């Protein structure tokens, strides 16, 4: 299966990319009532909110969602049904939950993963001045999308 134009593939699991994209789009449509669109060329904008969920078992790796703060506030607002100015500590909870749902929805679409793959409690990082080091042999699946015209990067690091 060929990846869509919204994807950047650097992995032997490239055929999982469309499934990751479908799973992510479904979460945003059902839970936030909005459609993700395909991203154009990167603007280099700082993505200073990162939500991560680890997986263990048949799939060992880390699912990561990155966006800017305005985008994260909008997501939390849509998910919780409250005005953006009322979003405070809920932002991290909402981002973690969205990442958890994307990871769960993805694993449930892969034959054999639903039963034998466990997800961690989400972690949310604010700020962009950090480096993420995965094992050297990790494969990376990455989707570059737009949420309300703001950049959204969803990636899955797969550890062999």
């Amino acid at each position, binding site marked *: 299966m060929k990846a869509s134009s919204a994807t950047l593939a650097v992995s032997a699991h490239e055929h999982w990319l469309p499934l990751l994209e479908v799973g992510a789009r479904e979460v945003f449509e*059902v*839970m936030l009532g909005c459609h993700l669109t395909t991203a154009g060329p990167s603007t280099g904008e700082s993505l200073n909110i990162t939500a991560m969920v680890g997986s263990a078992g048949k799939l060992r790796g880390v699912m990561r969602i990155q966006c800017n703060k305005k985008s994260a506030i909008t997501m939390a607002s849509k998910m919780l049904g409250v005005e953006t100015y009322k979003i405070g500590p809920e932002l991290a909870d909402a981002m973690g939950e969205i990442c*958890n*749902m994307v*990871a769960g929805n993805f*694993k449930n679409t892969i034959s054999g993963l*639903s*039963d034998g793959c466990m997800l961690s*409690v989400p972690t949310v990082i604010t700020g962009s001045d950090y480096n993420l080091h995965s094992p050297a042999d990790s494969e990376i699946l990455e989707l570059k999308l737009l949420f309300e015209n703001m950049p959204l990067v969803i990636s899955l690091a797969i550890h062999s």
Partner: protein
Amino acid sequence: MPVMDGLEFVKQLSGVANAKDVPVVMITTEGSEAHVVQALSCGARGYIRKPFTAEQVKEHVIPVLGVKA
């Protein structure tokens, strides 16, 4: 969930005297049939997979509450 997972929570809740009759509908990203069976056998009264719609919540919660939609 931190501390314990949903299945463990439902098991422990069923052992609490003044809470054991509280109906629990699990909302989870776990999607396997085996997990559904396990949840129901632990005492959950319903099971909703994420992502979910408001209609799905009504469909599962209203029967548990024993009220008319």
